[in-house]
């Protein structure tokens, strides 16, 4: 047996949450030791556990990370008011962790009151990262600026902020000099430039500065000159009438930014100003031009100089020719993201096809992560990609028109995606699109043993598809499905699997109210949330499909902050023993056919 000090020292090397979780299961003394020295807590679903339970177990926490709404909330599929309120957490951790240093929230509702509590409760507060959050205003930001004396990081990523005033930035006191990272790219309102300049000037440790659209291009050189130590810079609107003096100053400022490794911003680009960044291209490891609506030649000229690029985010304006240049020039590329410039248009004016992705997969041997929007795909291209890049860990392909087949053979894309999961053995994340039958799910269930997250849309023929995934994907934790003909059978047959996953989302599928209720009744470790906004929803028969269902494992029971369109199914004690409950159970059991029964035998015995 090791003395405590030794154990503690050993544990200090365990940084990943999974490692720590595993260590805590070894024995009771390890559990105890681990919980006292855990400094960072990650809660992937804020409704999976109660804040008090977390606090009781981990008394010495310095960093809390929480996630709220399901991923599909990013695409407007989760109605407003669903939940994800961080307030109860903030109140508890403010009381329990006075020395908390970091809070990271994703897809949560954060109010000004929450921010005020944060600002006033933690003496040594250092890091605030809010990603895809909403519910707060610039007043909340002002409170943070005014009170967090030791703040290092204020990172607002794609938040919806009520912009009452741009003066929040001026609330950072003159004595405040600890800023290392400021990301205000998602804000629309103008901040006082002189306040910003003074803030930058008195922040010698500032490494990340991402401006918002309102900072004009003429002012960029001033800021760059004030912060030659910057590593990560996001411009504001990158447009102006072409003026030689502005251009020269900007180009000069960039050339002096020897530490710059990451560039982003570039809204409303005036192409003539793009060459100003040429001098830093060879230093860049990350480049985000996805707001730059400029054509392929301009983009190609830039990427051709980015020899050290590891991450590229760009619009489909780059076209196949631009990606071909990427494949030849960016030999260190790890991640490629190509967004569509015109997401809603059927006609294609941009020459980006599957070929661009195939080129990059050929030329960039370190490519691991892909998010690619395009209009056509073929099985042979997917097979090539999988053979070129068996080291892929994240493959997300969105063919913009739903259910589109292989454009060459007109067959489904089953074989192509099958090849991806078969060859890319380390694949942890997959999103599919195009015409797909149950067959692709058979491939996935058979081969995708390391798959952690799967996104499916407009695919499959029957419950067999869902059954393959739930029964075959051993590592699956997050499954999100929309508009697929998957229903009750596969769900109920694999009910126990759901407790091994973080969550399952199904919308516009064929899962009935009855099945949701049954699942909720039989699985106390799951919350089965039916999200349905139809007016007549209370009078619908139980065999009617729900609009949306969100199922997640939880140790804290049902939540009580639900709006009227969310029903947590099967938690009323009466349902469990009623005749209706048994009738529904028998109905489903008799339809089970080839699937192994799961909870049915238990319900019969009631």
């Amino acid at each position: 047996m090791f003395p405590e000090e030794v154990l503690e020292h050993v544990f200090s090397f365990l940084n990943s949450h999974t490692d720590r979780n595993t260590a805590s299961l070894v024995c009771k003394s390890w559990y105890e030791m681990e919980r006292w020295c855990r400094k960072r807590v990650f809660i992937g679903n804020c409704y999976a556990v109660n804040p008090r339970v977390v606090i009781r177990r981990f008394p010495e926490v310095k960093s809390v990370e929480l996630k709220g709404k399901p991923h599909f909330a990013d695409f407007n599929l989760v109605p407003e008011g669903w939940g994800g309120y961080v307030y109860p957490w903030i109140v508890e951790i403010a009381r329990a962790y006075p020395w908390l240093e970091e809070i990271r929230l994703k897809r949560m509702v954060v109010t000004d009151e929450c921010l005020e509590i944060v600002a006033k409760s933690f003496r040594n507060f250092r890091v605030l990262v809010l990603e895809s959050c909403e519910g707060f205003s610039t007043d909340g930001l002002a409170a943070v600026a005014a009170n967090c004396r030791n703040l290092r990081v204020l990172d607002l990523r794609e938040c919806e902020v009520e912009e009452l005033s741009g003066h929040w930035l001026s609330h950072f006191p003159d004595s405040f000099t600890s800023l290392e990272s400021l990301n205000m790219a998602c804000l629309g309102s103008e901040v006082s430039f002189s306040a910003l300049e003074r803030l930058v000037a008195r922040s010698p440790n500032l490494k990340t500065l991402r401006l918002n659209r309102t900072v004009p291009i003429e002012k960029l050189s001033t800021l760059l000159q004030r912060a030659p130590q910057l590593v990560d810079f996001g411009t504001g609107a990158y447009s102006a009438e072409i003026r030689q003096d502005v251009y020269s100053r900007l180009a000069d400022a960039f050339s002096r930014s020897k530490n710059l490794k990451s560039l982003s911003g570039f809204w409303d680009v005036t192409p003539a100003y793009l060459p100003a960044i040429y001098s830093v291209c060879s230093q860049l490891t990350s480049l985000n031009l996805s707001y730059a609506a400029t054509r392929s030649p301009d983009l190609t000229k830039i990427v051709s100089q980015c020899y050290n690029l590891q991450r590229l985010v760009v619009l489909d304006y780059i076209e196949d020719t631009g990606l071909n240049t990427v494949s030849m020039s960016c030999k260190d590329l790890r991640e490629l993201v190509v967004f569509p410039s015109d997401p809603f248009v059927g006609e294609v004016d941009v020459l980006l096809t599957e070929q661009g992705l195939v080129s990059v997969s050929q030329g960039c041997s370190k490519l691991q992560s892909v998010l690619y929007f395009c209009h056509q795909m073929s099985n042979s291209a997917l097979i090539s990609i999988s053979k070129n890049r068996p080291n892929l860990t994240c493959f997300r392909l969105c063919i913009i028109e739903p259910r589109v087949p292989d454009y060459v053979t007109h067959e489904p894309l089953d074989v192509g995606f099958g090849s991806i999961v078969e060859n890319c053995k380390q694949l942890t994340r997959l999103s599919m699109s195009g015409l797909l039958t149950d067959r692709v799910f058979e491939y996935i269930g058979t081969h995708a043993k390391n798959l952690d997250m799967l996104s499916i849309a407009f695919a499959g023929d029957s419950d067999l598809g869902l059954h393959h995934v739930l029964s075959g994907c051993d590592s699956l934790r997050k499954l999100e499905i929309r508009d697929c003909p998957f229903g009750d059978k596969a769900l109920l047959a694999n009910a126990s699997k759901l407790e091994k996953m973080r969550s399952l989302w199904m919308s516009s599928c064929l899962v009935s109210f009855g099945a949701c209720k049954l699942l909720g009744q039989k699985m106390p470790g799951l919350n089965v949330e039916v999200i349905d906004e139809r007016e007549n929803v209370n009078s619908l028969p139980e065999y009617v499909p729900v609009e949306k269902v969100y199922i997640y494992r939880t140790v804290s029971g049902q939540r009580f902050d639900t709006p009227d369109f969310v029903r947590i199914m099967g938690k009323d004690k009466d349902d469990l023993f009623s005749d209706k409950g048994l009738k529904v159970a028998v109905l489903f059991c008799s339809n089970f056919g080839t699937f192994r029964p799961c909870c049915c035998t238990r319900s019969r015995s009631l």
Partner: protein
Amino acid sequence: MGPQVIGLEITELRLGLPGGGDSGERRVKKRVISEGGQEVDVVVGWPPVGLYRKNVVAKLYVKVSMDGVPILRKVDISCFKGYSELGMGLEKLFDCYGIGQAMEEDNGSCEYTTIYEDKDGDWMLVGDVPWLMFVETCKRLRIKRR
């Protein structure tokens, strides 16, 4: 989160009787009534491009010529929310009243007609197609005097 399509009124039609009759086909699209009066199918939440990104429309500067005016102008049509705003914008640009009204009324009595060149190179009357479709397909504008 606001409506995902800018400037359009969303009228939703839901199919599917409460009898589970639609076991196979489920309506996936929303019918959208546009400013131009046409119906366009827009699938909710598809393609899966983050809401934040959808709000960023690429600037679309197109050349605008007006009969009798030797110098061409350029206007960013993506910053207008609809045809009436475009009309007002053009009026301001050329300091000339009546263009917007002509676009709306289209009854032959106005002095001006605004036409645009689309992606296929054809000259079309401004105002026929839904606004967003117009923004994507318009390559240049011309204000003709009758």
